[in-house]
């Protein structure tokens, strides 16, 4: 059953004006440029992309932490962007977010207990701080501590406990383990998986690291320059990536195996600015696909089902030549 449905989400930021506001306005930054997906209840969608791909903006706009430019988000049939403030607040209890940086996302002047009580008070709920701490693997003694007394991993556990305190159904996890060391990262990833199983949570898991996503996601969507370029069940996308960008991204992940014999696809050039996306396929200036043609420079490829449909169906790619070998 679909819990969250995102339809043609668009978020543009007004371009900066040069010359202290007197000059011509720059073109808008198309951070998110028509993104659609849905997440079934209890499942995890991994949203992957590099800096500037728009993945974080998708997560924040879905929760209306930023106002969208266009598009629709349905949460159990509620139109999130059409709600009045009171109903939005009520809905926010059911959709929460865990931020990337556990150093800046906790108030340094509040104890752990105060941090965890605040959302409960806002929503008029009762909750046990000790039980919450226990659920995220922290001793009850942490309640009296301040963030500076905690390690990065402990802070992130507090951030998770804060999100869970109001008993949400849906949690946006925005790069929740990127700032953590590998041994602690594994602890927090396992914790998120355990909590999901225990509380039947639905996750949007935003990350730049395809290897991390593999350990938590059921489905994966890859973003490039504000658009989803490929989406598939996780096992499928890792085994049979179809979009040249996904293939390059996968081949660039450093593998902890000195005898790895993967073929590396090293992309040339940088990601173009989202204020000046290339015409046609946004990836075409860097695309290493042998079939790359004039069509790629002029005609934007639609996100479409691979033909013939892969078993299981639901493997989409936005490439004119997704079926051709690379």
């Amino acid at each position, binding site marked *: 059953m679909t819990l969250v449905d995102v339809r043609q989400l668009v978020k543009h930021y007004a371009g900066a004006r040069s010359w202290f506001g007197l000059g011509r306005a720059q073109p808008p930054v198309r951070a998110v440029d028509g993104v659609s997906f849905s997440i079934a209840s209890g499942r995890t969608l991994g949203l992957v992309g*590099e*800096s500037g791909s728009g993945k974080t903006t998708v997560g924040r706009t879905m929760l209306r932490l930023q106002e969208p430019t266009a598009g629709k988000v349905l949460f159990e049939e509620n139109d999130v962007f059409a709600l009045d403030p009171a109903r939005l607040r009520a809905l926010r209890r059911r959709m929460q977010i865990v931020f990337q940086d556990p150093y800046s996302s906790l108030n340094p002047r509040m104890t752990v207990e105060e941090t965890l009580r605040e959302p409960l008070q806002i929503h008029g709920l009762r909750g046990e701080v000790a039980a919450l701490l226990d659920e995220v693997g922290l001793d009850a003694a942490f309640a009296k501590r301040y963030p500076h007394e905690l*390690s*990065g*991993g*402990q802070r992130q556990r507090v951030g998770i406990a804060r999100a869970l305190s109001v008993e949400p159904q849906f949690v946006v996890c925005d790069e929740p383990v990127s700032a953590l*060391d*590998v*041994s*602690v*990262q*594994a*602890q927090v*990833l*396992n914790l998120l*998986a355990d909590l999901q199983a225990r509380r039947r949570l639905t996750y949007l898991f935003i990350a*730049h*690291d*395809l*290897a*991390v996503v*593999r*350990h*938590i*996601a*059921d489905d994966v969507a890859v973003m490039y320059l504000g658009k989803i370029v490929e989406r598939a069940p*996780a*096992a499928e996308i*890792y085994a049979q990536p179809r979009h040249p960008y996904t293939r*390059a*991204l*996968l*081949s*660039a*992940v*450093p*593998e*902890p*195996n*000195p*005898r*790895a014999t993967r073929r*590396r696809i*090293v*992309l*040339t050039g*940088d*990601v173009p600015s989202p204020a000046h996306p290339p015409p046609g396929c946004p990836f075409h200036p860097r695309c290493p696909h042998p079939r790359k043609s004039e069509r790629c420079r002029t005609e934007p490829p639609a996100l479409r089902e691979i033909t013939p449909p892969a078993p299981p169906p639901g493997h989409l790619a936005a490439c004119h030549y997704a079926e051709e070998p690379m």
Partner: protein
Amino acid sequence: MTAETPALLRVRDLKTYFVTEHGKGTARAVDEVSFDLYPGETLGIVGESGCGKTVTSLSILRLIPEPPGHILPGSLIEFEGRNLLALPAPELRAVRGNQIAMIFQEPMTSLNPVFTVGDQIAEAAIIHQHLSRAAARARAIEMLRLVGIPDPEERVDHYPHQLSGGMRQRVMIAMALVCHPKVLIADEPTTALDVTIQAQILELLDRLQQELGMAVLLITHDLGVVAGHADRVVVMYAGRVVETAKTDELFEHPLHPYTEGLLAAVPRIDALPARARLHAIPGQVPAATAWPTGCRFRPRCPHAWDKCLTEPPLLESGAPGHTARCWLVTEPERRQASR
């Protein structure tokens, strides 16, 4: 890299301590670290935050701010037969940036925003090699071309803010290599970069190392980066070297439980099946002001026994060229079957 080749850089019993803010304690950030770097090789130093890898690299070039830091007497950093720690400042400056160069993690903050990239690359060539301004500028253009920056004649007059993160890291590399150093210290050179840009920079470093024949000290938290680019690896934990081996050997037969744990904790794209649970090392790296007694990994170790509480293990050789600081090397029967 054979036993007969003398090491280019020898680090012996390096101890770098910091007096903490309120004078309450001493952080033993680097505590008796020893390793050798041979000509032409890439030596990886891996470890998590707080293990002492960056302090080690800064100590080599004496870039530790004093106070609060100090390198203890008895430490030795020998480069081509000279102890860098005993070198007078002018002689040290002749080595630093000239024969031993360094690139840092943050290409955004390591470049001066008010000078063109050409000026910044040329500076070292003017100081160390006494080139004229014109010759140094020509050298800067040549270096930009070497590191793969398109239109170097034009880019040489650009300021850092006009370049992307990947381009800035290329400029950093050009700056470091302008005097053709014998040793390049690369401290997390790709950590701030996206994975496709990281792949470009690592490939560039590999190519330049082959072309210029320099030795590289590659400091990283990423075992994947080490696996693909280092000849040998030093694993650090809690201010100490806990394991040293050739890269293949380390990944195939890790001896130290920390190395084993770290390898098992790395998320993998080739893992089967998807959503596989990761192995996690319990607990966290302790504070440098209060390292545990005995073996510093003991509180997190699945194999620890009473000896580990009282006797700090020594670096023992488990195989030729493979050492680990763990009592299991000499008492392998103590290894717990399950992990």
